[in-house]
């Protein structure tokens, strides 16, 4: 019928906010054209979220100890597609949860979206720097649902990459004041996700800084090699030319 359900883990200590978000996601499948529905799991603390995520990771390892099987299990049986967490929570804040999830070191990290009722640029910037896919101001609205869907990476087959990138950029520029490198990072991430070389993109994302640095070096090496080749050709021609001139003289 449409895409597989997007499994969302909602983390919020407020029962009202939790329920509103849950109902909003379940009710508004949105988009049409086979948009994936949401399957929502809601917990009231970062600690419970970590337990759920940690237990799932352990379960996967126990079920599939081999690397190949684990990769297959990781691709097919990941329980949560995206985490939507409130920022202000007692004991473990949404920021702490975000950092903990990113620190799990998974080759396929779960995207995390942070939400908050406070429109503080420093808070927003801090979360995005720590690796949050997006930052949404509460209360959640209907158009935030589509943003969430895009951040999860689960899109209908008919969706185009250009629209998604434009939407990410438009939302980023209108909702919050982001440094340009963060916006560029998001655009690059969105492009990588939808390119035919998705597997290569996943590997690149896993060690993005080191690989991009490697490609820079490789590119420089190729340039230098080409320059040396051109130089040698020039020298060869000059040397031939000098012989000819001597011979003619």
């Amino acid at each position, binding site marked *: 019928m449409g895409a597989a359900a997007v499994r969302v883990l909602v983390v919020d200590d407020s*029962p009202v*906010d939790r329920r*509103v978000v849950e*109902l909003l996601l379940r009710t508004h499948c949105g988009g049409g054209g086979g948009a994936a529905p949401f399957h929502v799991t809601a917990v009231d603390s970062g600690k419970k979220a970590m337990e759920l995520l940690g237990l799932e990771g352990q379960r996967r390892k126990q079920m599939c100890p081999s690397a190949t099987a684990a990769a297959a299990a990781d691709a097919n049986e990941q329980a949560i597609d995206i985490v939507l967490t409130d920022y*202000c929570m007692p004991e473990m804040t949404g920021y702490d949860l975000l950092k903990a999830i990113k620190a799990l070191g998974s080759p396929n990290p779960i995207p995390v979206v942070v939400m908050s*009722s406070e429109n503080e640029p420093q808070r927003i910037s801090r979360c995005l720097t720590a690796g949050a896919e997006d930052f949404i101001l*509460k209360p959640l*609205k209907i158009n935030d649902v589509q943003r969430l869907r895009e951040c999860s990476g689960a899109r209908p087959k008919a969706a185009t990459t250009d629209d998604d990138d434009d939407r990410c950029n438009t939302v980023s520029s209108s909702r919050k004041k982001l440094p340009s490198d963060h916006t560029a990072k998001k655009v690059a991430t969105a492009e990588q996700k939808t390119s035919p070389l998705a597997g290569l993109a996943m590997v690149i994302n896993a060690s993005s800084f080191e690989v991009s640095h490697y490609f820079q070096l490789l590119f420089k090496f190729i340039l230098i090699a080409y320059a040396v080749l051109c130089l040698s050709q020039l020298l060869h021609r000059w040397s031939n030319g000098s012989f000819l001139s001597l011979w003619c003289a």
Partner: protein
Amino acid sequence: MAAAPLREQLSALLSSMFSQGLVDEQFEQLQMLQDEGGTPGFVAEVVTLFCDDAERIIAEIATLLEQPIVSFDKVDAFVHQLKGSSASVGAQKVKFTCMQFRQFCQEKSRDGCLMALAVVRNEFYDLRNKFQTMLQLEQQIQAYDPKQQ
């Protein structure tokens, strides 16, 4: 046929709630989700949850403010939670009074907090009465015409 005057009452009630600033576009969005998403009882569930949660929070705040030494951080945390939940359901006036309450928390003024708590309580009770009337009217309308709503 008997549902028509009830619908008029409900419409007038909702209009007055919006015009008085008791609720805002977030509440309207929840109503839209209920109507367009085909999820009857969506608004009733959320409103009931908010009323129960708000009552609990107000009681907690009152207890904290009665202590000889007031922990303004804890009070502020509760007020923040009430502000958030009121924003989520579209309870605009309650949300604004919570924002003012937080100012007194940051100033660490017990008298200010007590005054703000009284304002928040009054606004909440007013809104709760309106919500209860709204839910009663919706139930009566549904009893007459279960296919709609």
